[in-house]
């Protein structure tokens, strides 16, 4: 049975972030990033939002691989919840956001070899409610050590 191990966790700008790795086969697995706003009414923006937002508004929620080259994604980033559109009347723009609360982004990866891999990930997110926005976290680098094989 594949096991899920925690690679990193931190709280910053109103959001608790956890990074996990789940091995599915030798050299293959899945990175999960859980983004949990610390206030119930806060929401996060869709991973599909452009990096600089729509008309400059909002910042996407992202989990990205920076290094090493052997650590690669095997597919698209997937969100645990579908995004909904939130209308910003001021600009007549619709912003894709996740419903208030936590969201998990999953990225299938190959580690390149069945051995421990030290890598660098990047996370981006921003939490807002209808009336307040917290500071965005953009391209925050996180060093992680992915174990060789994780089974239970």
């Amino acid at each position: 049975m594949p096991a899920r191990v925690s690679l990193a966790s931190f709280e910053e700008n109103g959001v608790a972030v956890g990074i996990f790795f789940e091995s599915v086969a030798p050299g293959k697995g899945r990175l999960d990033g859980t983004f949990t706003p610390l206030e119930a009414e806060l929401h996060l923006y869709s991973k599909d939002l452009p990096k600089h937002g729509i008309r400059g508004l909002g910042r996407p929620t992202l989990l990205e691989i920076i290094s090493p080259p052997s650590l690669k994604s095997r597919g698209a980033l997937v969100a645990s919840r579908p995004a909904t559109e939130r209308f910003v009347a001021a600009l007549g723009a619709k912003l894709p956001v996740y419903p208030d609360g936590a969201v998990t982004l999953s990225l299938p990866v190959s580690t390149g070899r069945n051995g421990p891999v030290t890598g660098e990930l990047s996370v981006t997110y921003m939490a807002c409610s209808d009336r307040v926005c917290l500071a965005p976290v953009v391209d925050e680098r996180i060093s992680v050590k992915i174990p060789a094989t994780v089974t239970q």
Partner: protein
Amino acid sequence: MHAQMKLLFAWPLALSIGLAACYANFAQDPRGPYDPRSDANAKIEAALADARAHRKFVLLDFGANWCPACRELQSAFAAAEVRTYLKMHFNLVHIDIGNFDRNGAVTREYGFPTSAGIPAEVVLTAEGKPMTIERAGAMGHASASAPLLLAWLSSWVEQTPHAESTAPDPGPMVDAGQVRSAAETLAVRVAGESLGTFIPQLVVRNDSVFSTLTGVLHGSTVQRVVTIHDARSLRPREVWDSTNAEQVHLIYTAGRVRGAQVRPRREGPPDTLLVNQFTDAGTIDRRNFMIVIPRLALTPGMSFTMPEFDSWTMRTYPVHLTVGQRAPVTLPAGSFDAYRLDITGDMWDMPQTWYLSAETPRRILRMEWPRGTVWDLAR
């Protein structure tokens, strides 16, 4: 319309254009209101200086263009009724905080209003003293509702007298001997061309004192003003003004002027501006100058300042008056012993030079305004 008449009445149009330019600051810039290149300290200093001059508050708006809640609040600021109220009572300063990494010193100086998120607002007195710090998007709930935002803004204006400001010297008292019913006709010329007449009239009946001002240009009545005065001070209690451009109703009471200014438009409902602001003690309405000034206890050599409220600009201006020595003057209406009165102030119709008759009842013999506008007592 004659060119001279245009000159005489060009100021309302110019003023309207000026106000529109000010309002343009509230327009929705697609990039957002927070300019990363601007000097926040310089903007705040300029806003405070203007606030001191015009008895306003300063509203600091900390935010960033990437912040949807900030942009929603900006949109609420731009709503017609809110922006009008803001312009009257506040100087709004947008402070870009970037990714919470810009203008840190300013944020620190005002008590870290952004510590729980943006938008964050700080209201300052004209002297720079913080009156409130709205953290954690406390203002955000108001962005959905102009009435809520207006209520929040007006709570500061209504509840907070400008304690630090010093009211100017109210100037000389009214000379009771001059307060009697009288009317005079002043012929107005611009650059030598006769345009028509204005008739200031004071009516005293028992304890009631009111005045009228009737303007007739090229045979058409262009303005009617009726004022109810305080019987002793001649300060205005209530003013009605009707012109082709607007109708104004103002009530002066308890250190405030309240009322409405209604300007018809070619189509649709009229533009309506509500007036509700503090005035200095002794403030007179701009329309009452011809009524009040000749009836003050003036003595040669005296100099004083009177606050004058102008509803076109929604401001109270200090107007400085200096009384000259009694001297004979010869005018179209005849030869008189007169006092020269020099009037200055930061207003569109200043400086002025008046000649007032020395005898009782004192009459306006001549007024010389900018741009070659002369008012002479008709024969």
